[in-house]
């Protein structure tokens, strides 16, 4: 598969940028997402989806990262949607996906920072029913979602359970948060009754879901980083000090170039990971497992994209000087989102370690050799 985006994907990216560039960070882009049919992208036609590629999905996430538009896209389409599609039983998929695919209903995935586990316990209440207890913090769109797809530790280990957000025994709240552009709620279960919806092999399938979520988020981080770099370049090209535009000083110029290099590396790693995340589906629309190879590519994307986004947001503020530190300037939203993204699914250390572990445990690396590229 080519590394670069297709012409159609580039067109989509431009369209999204055009539509969303006039919206201030944190403002609602959900209506335009539904209007453009973007919620349908990663789902098979059988569920009402557009049968798009994972690459298409990352284009949307990149666009959202560029603008920080507010929408339950990560939570409902990427997290809960992909968890249902890949790891829920057949009946649940048939029942719930159409609403999520069309954007008519939203769902949130209640999970811990590692995605495949959470702080929620499930005890058998009745046939195919669990009684849920526990508190999970930082649930993306956990208060606003209609449906909660819960990763829980049940009698058979990791399970998926489904509960309406308004069901008895469910308490949801949003307090102050680092990043105000994305809702991170505390979701509390106190004996709430939930339906058991795990499909076969749920633990390993959730592992793949996790990889896909990480790659989608990494795409958002790349979009965020690019936008910060653009703002900083624009400012450095106009702001005058000491009789010259500040972008002509090496101290500024080289800072911006280092950002560009970090973004290029992150972006190409995300593109590579996203081509590994394309779904190979069996007849029932269940994804084929991607396994450790996908996990490793997702970890690489996660690490490089987190670094690029955080550094871009930080350094863009520095390039802007005092104005970048004001409430009025949008950069603090980017800084906040960058930090939240960096920590949403755990900091990078375990991801770096997981890459290192698979390398030293004999999977090895092939030595990339010099390829003479003709001009």
């Amino acid at each position: 598969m080519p590394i670069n985006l297709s012409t159609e994907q580039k067109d989509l990216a431009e369209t999204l940028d055009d539509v969303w560039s006039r919206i201030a960070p944190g403002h609602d882009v959900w209506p335009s997402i539904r209007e453009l049919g973007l919620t349908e992208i990663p789902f098979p036609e059988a569920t009402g989806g557009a049968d798009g590629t994972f690459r298409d999905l990352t284009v949307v996430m990149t666009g959202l990262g560029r603008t920080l538009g507010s929408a339950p896209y990560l939570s409902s389409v990427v997290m809960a949607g992909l968890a249902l599609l890949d790891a829920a039983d057949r009946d649940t998929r048939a029942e719930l996906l159409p609403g999520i695919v069309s954007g008519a209903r939203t769902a949130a995935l209640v999970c811990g920072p590692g995605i495949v586990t959470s702080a929620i316990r499930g005890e058998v209440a009745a046939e195919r029913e669990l009684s849920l207890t526990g508190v999970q913090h930082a649930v993306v769109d956990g208060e606003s979602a209609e449906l909660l797809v819960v990763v829980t530790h049940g009698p058979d280990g990791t399970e998926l359970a489904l509960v309406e957000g308004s069901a008895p025994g469910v308490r949801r709240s949003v307090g102050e948060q680092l990043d105000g552009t994305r809702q991170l709620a505390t979701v509390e279960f106190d004996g709430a009754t939930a339906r058991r919806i795990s499909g076969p092999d749920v633990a390993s399938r959730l592992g793949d879901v996790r990889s896909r979520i990480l790659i989608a988020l990494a795409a958002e981080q790349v979009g965020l980083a690019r936008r910060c770099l653009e703002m900083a370049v624009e400012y450095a090209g106009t702001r005058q000090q000491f009789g010259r535009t500040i972008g002509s000083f090496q101290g500024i110029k080289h800072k911006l170039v280092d950002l560009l290099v970090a973004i290029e590396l992150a972006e190409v790693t995300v593109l590579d990971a996203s081509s590994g995340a394309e779904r190979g589906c069996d007849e029932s629309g269940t994804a084929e497992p991607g396994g450790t190879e996908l996990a490793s590519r997702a970890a690489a994307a996660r690490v490089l994209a987190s670094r690029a986004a955080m550094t871009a947001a930080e350094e863009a503020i520095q390039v802007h000087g005092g104005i970048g530190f004001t409430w009025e300037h949008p950069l603090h939203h980017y800084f906040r989102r960058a930090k939240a993204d960096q920590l949403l699914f755990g900091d990078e250390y375990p991801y770096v370690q997981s890459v290192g572990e698979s390398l030293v445990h004999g999977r090895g690396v092939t030595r990339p050799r010099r390829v003479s590229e003709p001009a």
Partner: protein
Amino acid sequence: MTATVIPAETGQDGAEDLRAFEAASRAWLDSRLPRRDAAEQAPKYSIFHNLGHEDERALIDGGRAWQAERVDAGFGAMTWAPQWGGRGLTASHERIYAGVEREYLTPERHENILVTVELVAPTLLELGSDWQQERFIRPFLRTDELCCQLFSEPGAGSDLAGLSTRAVRDGESWRVNGQKVWSSGAQFSEWGLLIARSDPAAPKHKGMTAFMVPMDLEGVEVRPIRQMSGGSTFNEVFLTDVVLPDEFRVGEVGDGWRVALTTLGFERQSSAGIVDAGGNTADLIRLATSLGLTGAAEVRGRIAESHLYERAQALLVARYAELEQAGAVPGVEGSIGKLVWTQNLKRVGDAAASFLGHRILADTGEADTFAWTQHLLGAPGYRIAGGSDEIQRNIIGERGLGLPREPR
């Protein structure tokens, strides 16, 4: 080199043709070289050559013989037109061949060969006279003769246009006086591509002219410089009353800056793809394993870091190649590639040194340990060679990001 590249083929016939070409490449290589078996290969950590003069010459001669053999068989200068001994094939063919060749144990390609084939030959194709093209291109592509660059000076490195070597016209010839430095491979080259100041009154970028200089000419003296890594690849070249016929002039009088930029452009494109010098992640894993360190989280972390950037760079090079094949004009990709590469050289060297600790301070006689000094001491050099990190960042900032220029 755009003039020589035929547009990439698409469609069924193109794909079939490429498959057939791959098979032909493999058949030819099979008949000539042993397969590369990573396990049996002695690891090599040097970034610059740290060899004695005769050993380095032998290395170059091996590389030259292989280059000539490749060209003669149609696998050496394949994107060049038949007129120059090429086959007029596409960039895709070249890439496929390069991929297949990696499976075999090829003689090492010294940078002197790279300069001659990938930098000087295409510069002459673009800017040389008919006579020069006839005289030089074939021998350079086959490396029958080698050519070095005579660009930098003690007073003009990064500010190349500030050079002061003088070329004074005297009827149908030129008299050259001055000193060049950092001329890689000058001691092994038959020719040098020289940039000299021909008009001291003109603004500094305007008054320069380029020449081909026979390195055995009277008044040309080459003095190797010993590098911090131990070897002597670079040289000082002293030019004292060197007389050059006007037919050795490359481009118009006063057009030397354009010649220099053309060569440097090829250099940047070419340096994006260098990944093969020094140690790398696979070597780090082997080292950590042999030292019994793979259980340490810090060690695994450093191995992972090296791998992440090494892999990202390989993807980046492939991505740029893909864009170029689709018709994009190369911009700052070469500079980005070089920065990423030299940063990872440092990352790998620092990791190896930290794994080795005391064992890199003094040779214990144990194989594969002290040898890493070759990498450690070579890495700083490539952050300067071919345009320093600061120059690459200026290029990327100004041409890639459109930031205002440095005051000059």
